[in-house]
């Protein structure tokens, strides 16, 4: 990705940092200087301007790239509703919490509750695309109402917990209770998955819409979509029967 604003961590973080306010609201039209003044909430030292923690180069123009060891950063792009945010590395917890639009592309791993609903909230993501190229912690995409979460590696337990609608795509294996208590929405598993007992097996088929979705993931994000994923068969499970029963798990199968 060329252009855009590059935020490089000045010195390694020694305390957790909450970045939920940095990309809140409309940020893509701001200048680098304006964004530099937005607060990062440091665990111990409190509100600190972004520019003191990150060296900023370039202008946003709708794009921002974070560089450095970012594992102590929580809630990056929480509530994001515009722009493209790339993270070169791994993030802490609640990355892309309640994402509403735009794209958060994490090259490394994400901690727990990536793209989830804030704790205690019924509704999570309402739009946008969250790409975790590595592994994701527990409850990725929990409570999602709309949008897309992709986990390139392994997804922790309870991915897509209580989904209202939307898509969670897991390339690696999915942890326990994926899709549990979903009302609608899809968990697409390209790796191993054990559906909860309140999901009922329906059939093995080739869902056409997955060709669209996976083609896009390969094309737009360069994710490792293989011909076997595009042309292969999927086991469809309907659930969660404890809720509306209008959701599904689509599990790729070698047949």
């Amino acid at each position, binding site marked *: 990705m060329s252009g855009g604003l590059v935020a490089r961590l000045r010195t390694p973080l020694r305390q957790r940092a909450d970045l939920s306010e940095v990309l809140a609201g409309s940020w893509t039209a701001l200048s680098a200087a304006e964004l530099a003044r937005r607060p990062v909430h440091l665990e111990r030292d409190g509100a600190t301007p972004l520019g003191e923690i990150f060296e900023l180069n370039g202008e946003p123009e709708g794009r921002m790239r974070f560089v450095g060891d970012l594992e102590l950063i929580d809630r990056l792009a929480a509530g994001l509703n515009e722009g493209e945010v790339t993270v070169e590395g791994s993030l802490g917890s609640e990355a892309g919490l309640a994402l509403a639009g735009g794209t958060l592309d994490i090259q490394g791993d994400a901690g727990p509750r990536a793209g989830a609903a804030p704790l205690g909230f019924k509704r999570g993501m309402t739009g946008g695309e969250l790409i975790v190229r590595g592994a994701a912690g527990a409850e990725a995409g929990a409570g999602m109402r*709309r949008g897309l979460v992709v986990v390139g590696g392994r997804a922790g337990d309870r991915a897509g917990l209580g989904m209202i*609608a939307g*898509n969670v795509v897991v390339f690696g294996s999915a942890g326990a209770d994926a899709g549990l208590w979903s009302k609608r929405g*899809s968990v697409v598993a390209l790796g191993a998955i054990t559906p909860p007992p309140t999901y009922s097996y329906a059939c093995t088929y080739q869902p*056409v819409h997955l*060709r*669209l*979705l996976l*083609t896009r993931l390969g094309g737009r994000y360069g994710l490792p979509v293989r011909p076997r994923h*595009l042309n292969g068969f999927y086991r469809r499970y309907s659930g969660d029967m404890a809720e509306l029963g209008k959701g599904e798990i689509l599990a790729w199968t070698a047949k």
Partner: protein
Amino acid sequence: MKIRGVFIEDTFAEAFTMRVARIVITARSNRWVRAAALKLTGFATSVIGCKVEAGIERALSARETPDGRPGTSILLMTMGKDDLAKRLVERIGQTVLTCPTTACFDGLPDATDRVGVGSALRFFGDGFQMSKVIAGVRYWRIPVMEGEFLVQEKFGTLKGVGGGNFLILARSPDAALGAAEAAADAMAAQPGTILPFPGGVVRSGSKVGSRRIKSMIASTNDAYCPTLRAVTKSALPDSVNSVLEIVVNGVDAPSIASSMRAGIHAACHDGVVAISAGNYGGKLGPHHFHLRQIMAGA
């Protein structure tokens, strides 16, 4: 003006603004793409009797379709936008939804005027349908006995042009047909256009209204019927014994002009006396395709 000895009359084709939609049908194999496309575009020659004019625009390779399967693009045209929405729902519902392995996508993603299609067809799912938003576009997955029918929620519509035409005036029926076939073949590959009539060719050119029945919108174009040369005010030179018309619709005027150019070029053969065009004196349609201008640009 003459092309390969064929006289190009100094006249123009008069065409109308129509609403156009482009739909893309994909399927497991070309067999089912073709099956759906032929049914979908059947009985869709003229809005006068068919409510919609439709034709296959071109075949699409697997690389060109949204789902990476073979497909085809089709244009459907009506006089108004609401009408177009109804026709799309009717035709896609009856001929694509029903056809094994197909899916149906909008081919005008940039058009801002959009009409609901999947949003109406979804009700066939009886509450079991599911919607998916992929890359900001909503699709409906409608469960069917074979699996799922995937159809886009909304289809774009543009202001297109319908009724581009030219007439092939020939010495013999064989010469007219040969020239028309050559023209239709040449025009089939033109992007953004369709030839809504059988094989792309019309033998029953019409004039506006009727001499005898007031309510009739159109009746035979007696001035171009060779058999009536003796009883009507004929427009045909003496040597002409058969006339065929090519009608072309398209997404815009330049596509039609370029299609007509290719068609006329191909039609100018031995046995063809002249190329003419149908118009209503320029009072009815906003688009005028002057044959000589078109051909001069070749």
